[in-house]
């Protein structure tokens, strides 16, 4: 799961070098359009629908947060 998420981030933002250690929101790397695109691709990759209430900047700040987010929304 973690690798899939990493690959999706890499594919969308090839300019981000250190995905494991970047604070995407705090460092201003991701904006709301990136988040929308990531949600759409996570939904597709894991066959889930991330709850709209969970689409908050903090849930996209780190790779760990994104892993927790997709787990919380039912990804196996």
């Amino acid at each position: 799961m973690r690798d899939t998420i990493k690959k999706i981030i890499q594919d969308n933002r090839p300019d981000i070098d250190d995905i494991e250690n970047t604070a995407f929101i705090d460092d201003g790397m991701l904006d709301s359009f990136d988040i929308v695109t990531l949600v759409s691709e996570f939904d597709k990759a894991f066959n889930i629908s991330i709850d709209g209430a969970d689409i908050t900047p903090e849930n996209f700040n780190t790779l760990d947060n994104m892993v927790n987010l997709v787990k919380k929304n039912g990804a196996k």
Partner: protein
Amino acid sequence: MRLSFQGKKISGILTVVPKNEINFEDEIDNYNFTKKQCMKLKLVMGYDKKRIAPYGVCSSDLCEYGMNYLFDNNLLKREEIDALIMVTQSPDYFMPATSNILHGKLGLKEDIICFDISQGCCGFLIGLIQAFMLLDQPEIKKVALLNADVISPKVSKRDRNSAPLLGDGASITIVEKSDNNEKIYADIKFDGKNAMCLNIPAGGFRMPSTPETAMEKEDEAGNFRALDHLVMKGDDVFNFVLNKVPNQIEELLKSLNLTKNDIDYFICHQPNKFMLQKLADKLGVSYDKLPNNIVENFGNASGVTIPTNICYNLKNTDKKLKLLLSGFGVGLTWASMVLDLEPLKFIDIIEF
């Protein structure tokens, strides 16, 4: 606030869209996106085609055109109209009201009530509620509800939050008394503390337009916008919709002892494709019961999207449908309504 009505019905809907169609891909150089991002957002957000009125065309022009179409095709008679409600955020003038202008242009009778309502995304439901209340008067038998917005002149072409989505359009909905005593139920809520989530800062009396307010400046996300332009705090609006609207719909249905299976279609305002898919998922409603194809075909013309949704998706239905209508946005305002839609005298989309 819970509201209910009886003995009223929608008898016809006509949407008027400008002929001028703009394609998202022709405008992507305006936005601070890579080509790859653009193509992904096209799929996810529904950025595709939108209808934009020619320079100088105002909301009343689209309405006048549509009303004359109805008169000319014997679908409506001038003298039948006892009330005219104009719902718009883009009036022709500060004064007089656009409804008065239309009254004159259309040659309507003096014995009538006409007024404007300033509402946007929830404007169809607000207008319907007002029409139903007017129909409680014995003298008022037929109401012309006009929803129209030509907001494109107030949207920066370099604002990727708004420009790819917003379109222009108008709709005419005829609401009248009915022998059918089926009740119509609605719930409406307001949150004025967040009124500025969607706003046009300059151009009113608070901040009149000046050469300075017309100057475009770059925001932190790379959008270029002037104070004369519409500002949408997209994240706040998204969170508002996903937090408030599903609960309102669930509670309204529960209070009426209805399940989602009892509803034939969920006809919602369409701000963008992503938001509506999330709304459908949250409600547990299949995508075919919650049509989501207006933004990509016409753009989001605020209060016009719900009637356009009905005309575009339900035109070929010849049986009575139980609909849940839901509008949400500027204000912040959100409303949902359960009503039966009988086969209409007219249901169509025409080009201006």
